[in-house]
C-alpha cells in the first residue's frame, strides 16, 4: 500500500524520538502523543479518493520523504539580517524566533512584551510543568464532539495526529482577560542549514483571554532557498468570550519546501476573530482552518490570498462550524495563478440545527494568468437550520479585457495594465484590514510576489 509506505518513516521517527519527547513535568502529555501515533497508524495518510484531499496528493506533498532531525543537533547559525528580512513587522515589535523548529532566544525580542501577554516557547512551558495547559491541549472542537466523539481515526486528520505525536516546540501565546494589547506581536519559523529533507512539526497554542484584544503575525520562511523541508504545523486557538483576535499567517518558504498546516479555533460568545492566510512560497502548500463558532453573537472573518507561479500547488481548506445562533461569518479567498501552478479552494460552511439567524457569506475568486495554470474551487454549504442567510460564490477567470483596453487607451503599456489590474485584484481584499500599517506591509509583500506581467 502506497499510503503505508509513506506513513512508515513517521512511525519510525516517533519510536526513535519517543524517550526524548517525554516531558516529565507534564505527565499527561505522553499518553496524548501515544494515542495520536496509534490513530495515525490506524488511519494512514489520506488516499486519492479522500473527499477532503481531492485535489492534493499526499505523495506529492511528501516527495522523496522527510525525516525528523535527531534531537541534539547543533543549532545552525543565522544572521540577524536574515531574521530582519523575514519579518513583516518593524524591529520594535515583540518577536519569537524558531529555527528548524527550535526556539532561539538570542534571535527573539521578548523584553518588549506588555504586561498580561505571554509569548514564549511552548516546549519550555511544558517542560516547566504545563498542567494548566492540559485542558487547552489537543481538544476536539465542540462541533466535532456533537458530531460524534470517539469516532474512528480519519485519514484527513493524519498530519494533525503526526504533529501531536512528534512536535518538539512551538509558541504559547496568551493574553490575560481584559488585556487590550494594541500592538501586534510576531512569530518567525525559519529553516536554515538543512542538509537532508527535514520534517519539522511546529505546535502553537494561542489563548485569547476574555474581553482581551490581540494581534499576531506568524511567518514561515526558508533562509536557504533551495532546502527541502516539510513544515507540518498545528495551531490551536481559544478565543474566550468577548475577546477580539486578529491573526495573520504568511507562508513564504523556499521552492523546495512543503507546508502542511492545520489551525483549529474555537470562538466564545460575542468574540471577534479575523484570520488571514497569505501563501506566497513553497512547492506544495496545504493550509487547513477549522473554526468552531461556539458562542452566540460572534463575528468571524477568514481571508486568504494565494499567489502561485512555476509548478507550485496551493490548497486552501476551510471549514466553519456555525454551532451557536446569531453569528456572522465572512470568508473571502483570492487566488492568482500563473505558469503551471495550481490553486485549490475548498471551503465549507456547516450550519448546525441550533444556529438560527446565522449570516454566512463565502467567496472564492481566481485569476488565471497563464495557459498552464489550474484553479479548482469547491465552496460548500451544509445547512441544517432554516432561519439563516447563507450565500457563496466562486469565480474563475482572467483579467477583464475591457479594463485592460481602457488602461491602455489611457497610455499604460499592456504589461503595466496587467500588473495594475492584478494588484487591484489582490488589494481589494486588503481593504478588510483596519490597520493601515499592516495593510501596507502585506500589500508590499504580495506585490513583490506577483508574477512578472507577461504577454497575454
Amino acid at each position: 500500500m502506497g499510503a503505508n509506505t509513506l506513513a512508515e518513516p513517521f512511525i519510525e521517527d516517533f519510536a526513535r524520538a519517543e524517550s526524548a519527547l517525554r516531558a516529565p513535568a507534564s505527565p499527561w502529555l505522553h499518553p496524548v502523543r501515544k494515542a495520536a501515533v496509534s490513530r495515525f497508524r490506524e488511519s494512514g495518510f489520506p488516499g486519492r479518493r479522500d473527499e477532503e484531499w481531492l485535489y492534493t496528493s499526499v505523495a506529492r506533498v511528501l516527495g522523496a520523504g522527510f525525516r525528523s532531525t535527531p534531537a541534539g543537533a547543533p543549532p545552525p547559525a543565522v544572521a540577524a539580517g536574515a531574521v530582519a528580512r523575514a519579518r513583516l513587522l518593524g524591529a520594535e515589535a515583540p518577536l519569537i524566533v524558531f529555527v528548524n523548529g527550535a526556539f532561539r532566544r538570542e534571535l527573539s525580542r521578548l523584553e518588549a512584551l506588555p504586561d498580561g501577554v505571554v509569548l514564549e516557547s511552548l516546549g519550555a512551558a511544558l517542560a516547566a510543568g504545563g498542567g494548566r495547559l492540559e485542558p487547552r491541549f489537543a481538544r476536539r472542537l465542540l462541533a466535532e464532539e456533537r458530531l460524534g466523539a470517539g469516532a474512528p481515526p480519519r485519514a484527513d486528520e493524519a498530519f494533525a495526529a503526526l504533529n501531536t505525536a512528534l512536535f518538539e516546540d512551538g509558541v504559547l501565546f496568551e493574553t490575560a482577560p481584559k488585556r487590550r494589547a494594541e500592538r501586534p506581536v510576531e512569530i518567525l519559523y525559519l529553516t536554515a542549514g538543512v542538509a537532508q529533507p527535514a520534517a519539522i512539526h511546529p505546535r502553537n497554542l494561542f489563548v485569547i483571554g476574555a474581553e482581551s484584544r490581540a494581534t499576531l503575525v506568524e511567518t514561515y520562511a526558508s533562509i536557504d532557498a533551495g532546502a527541502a523541508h516539510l513544515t507540518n504545523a498545528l495551531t490551536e486557538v481559544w478565543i474566550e468570550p468577548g475577546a477580539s483576535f486578529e491573526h495573520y499567517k504568511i507562508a513564504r518558504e523556499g521552492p523546495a519546501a512543503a507546508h502542511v498546516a492545520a489551525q483549529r479555533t474555537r470562538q466564545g460568545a460575542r468574540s471577534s476573530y479575523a484570520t488571514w492566510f497569505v501563501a506566497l512560497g513553497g512547492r506544495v502548500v496545504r493550509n487547513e482552518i477549522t473554526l468552531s463558532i461556539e458562542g452566540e453573537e460572534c463575528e468571524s472573518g477568514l481571508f486568504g490570498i494565494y499567489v502561485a507561479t512555476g509548478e507550485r500547488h496551493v490548497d486552501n481548506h476551510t471549514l466553519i462550524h456555525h454551532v451557536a445562533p446569531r453569528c456572522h461569518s465572512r470568508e473571502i479567498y483570492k487566488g492568482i495563478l500563473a505558469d503551471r501552478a495550481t490553486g485549490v479552494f475548498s471551503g465549507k460552511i456547516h450550519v448546525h440545527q441550533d444556529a438560527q439567524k446565522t449570516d454566512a457569506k463565502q467567496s472564492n475568486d481566481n485569476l488565471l494568468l497563464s495557459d498552464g495554470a489550474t484553479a479548482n474551487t469547491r465552496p460548500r454549504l451544509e445547512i441544517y437550520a432554516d432561519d439563516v442567510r447563507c450565500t457563496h460564490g466562486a469565480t474563475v477567470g482572467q483579467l477583464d479585457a475591457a479594463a485592460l483596453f481602457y488602461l491602455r487607451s489611457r497610455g499604460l503599456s499592456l504589461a503595466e495594465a496587467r500588473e495594475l489590474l492584478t494588484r487591484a485584484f489582490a488589494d481589494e481584499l486588503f481593504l478588510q484590514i483596519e490597520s493601515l500599517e499592516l495593510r501596507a506591509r502585506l500589500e508590499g509583500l504580495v506585490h513583490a510576489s506577483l508574477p512578472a506581467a507577461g504577454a497575454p
Partner: protein
Amino acid sequence: MADSNRDIEALANREYKYGFVTEIDSETLPRGLNEEIVRAISERKTEPEWLLEWRLKALRHWLGMTEPSWPNVRHPPIDYQDIIYYSAPKQKARLENLDQVDPELLATFEKLGISLEEQKRLSGVAVDAVFDSVSVATTFKDKLAELGIVFCSFSEAVQSHPELVQRYLGSVVPYTDNYFASLNSAVFSDGSFCYIPAGVRCPMELSTYFRINAANTGQFERTLIVAEPNSYVSYLEGCTAPMRDTNQLHAAVVELVALERAQIKYSTVQNWYPGDKDGKGGIYNFVTKRGACRGRGSKISWTQVETGSAITWKYPSCILQGDDSVGEFHSVAVTNHHQQADTGTKMVHIGKNTRSTIISKGISAGRGQNTYRGLVKVQKGAEGARNFSQCDSLLLGDRCGAHTFPYIEVKNPTAKVEHEATTSRIGEDQIFYCNQRGISTEDAVTLIVNGFCKEVLSELPMEFAVEARNLLGISLEGSVG
C-alpha cells in the same frame, strides 16, 4: 401559527395519488442477479449475440465494483440478490396496435392521466409507456415515421435498427461508468429509443411514462436519443409507482447524442413514490443521465422537476465536445418528510467557446435533505468557455437540510466560470402578508414556491409546466412553521 400548521400537516400528509397497484398477469424471472438471469433477459427479448456479450461484460465489471458512498444520502444496504430484475405484463404476441394492449394496462395509464387512446386523436404529444420493465405502447409511430423519426421501445429498436443501437449504445455512458450504470447495462429490460434524422425538427413532444408496478422489482430502463445534424427534439419523461412499504430500486441510464447544430431538450417530471411520512418505503432513484454535444453548435438542455423518490441520486450531464456547443441544466428538487436528494449536473467543457448554464432550486421540508452537487470542468483546450451557475435553496422548517457542493475545475485561463448560491426560507411575515390579503397559507406557500422555481418551470413544455406546478403544491404545501 397553530392553525396554519395544522393545515400544513394535513396537506403535507396528503396521500400519494398514484399509489395504486394494477392487478395484471406478469411474467417474472426469479430474484437475484447472475449470468443466468442476464442470459434469460436477453433471450426473452431475442437479442443479437453482441448485445448479450455487452450485457455480460457489464455484469462481470459490476461484480468487481463497490457501491459508491460519497453521495450525501443515507439508506440501509441494498441486497442486490433480493431484487427481481425482470417483470413483464404477459402478452400473447407482438402488438400491432393499441387495441391489443391489455385493457387493465390501458386503464392504468388512463388513471395516471396518460390516455393512450386519446393520443390517437389528439396531436401534440407522442407517448411511449413503460410498465415495470417493458414498453407497452407507443403512439404516433406512423406519423413520426413519415419524417424519418424513429420513436419506439428500446427492445423494438434493437430488432428494427440494430446498427444505430450498436453504434450509440454505451457511447456516452459506457458500461464501466459507475456502479448503477454498470448494473443497468447488465440487466436493462426496456426503455425508449429515439432517432431524429438530419435537418428534421420533430413536430411534437416525445414522451415516455415509466411505471413500476410489480413488488420487489427493480426498474432498469435505458433511453437513447440520437439527433443528427441540424435536427431538434423535445422529449419528456414522467414517472410514478405504487405505494409499497419496501424500497424499490430504479437505476436507469439515459444517453443523448447531439450532432452538429442539433438540439435535444430533455425534461423530466419525476414523481416516484417517495415513501410515507415516516420514511417507510419509496423508490431509490439512482440514475445516470448524460448527453454528448458532439458537433459544432449542438445543444443539450436538461430540465427536471424532482418531487418523488425516497432517495434521488442523479446528475444529468453534458459533455461539450463540439466547439460552440451549449449545455443547460434547470432543476427543481423537492424533499419532504424523510426524502433525500443528491442531485446536480456535470458540465465538461472540451470544445472552444462552449457555454453552460446551471440553475438549481432545492426545496427542503420536514426532515428532507437536499444536496446540490455539480461539477464544472473546463479542460485545457476549451478556449473561451463560459459557465454560470445559480443554486438556490429554500428551507421550510427547522428539521430539514440544504446543502450545496459545487466542484469547479478550470484549466484554461480564457474561461470564465461563475457560481452563486443562496439560502432562504419562507418567512412568517410573508405568510401573514398573504393571509391578510385573503390568501390561505397553503396557497401562499404554493405561490412563493412557484415564484422561487419560476426560472426552471418556464423551461418545461407548457402542458407539463402545469402538471409540475400542481405537483410542487402537493409535495410541499406549507411545511412552514
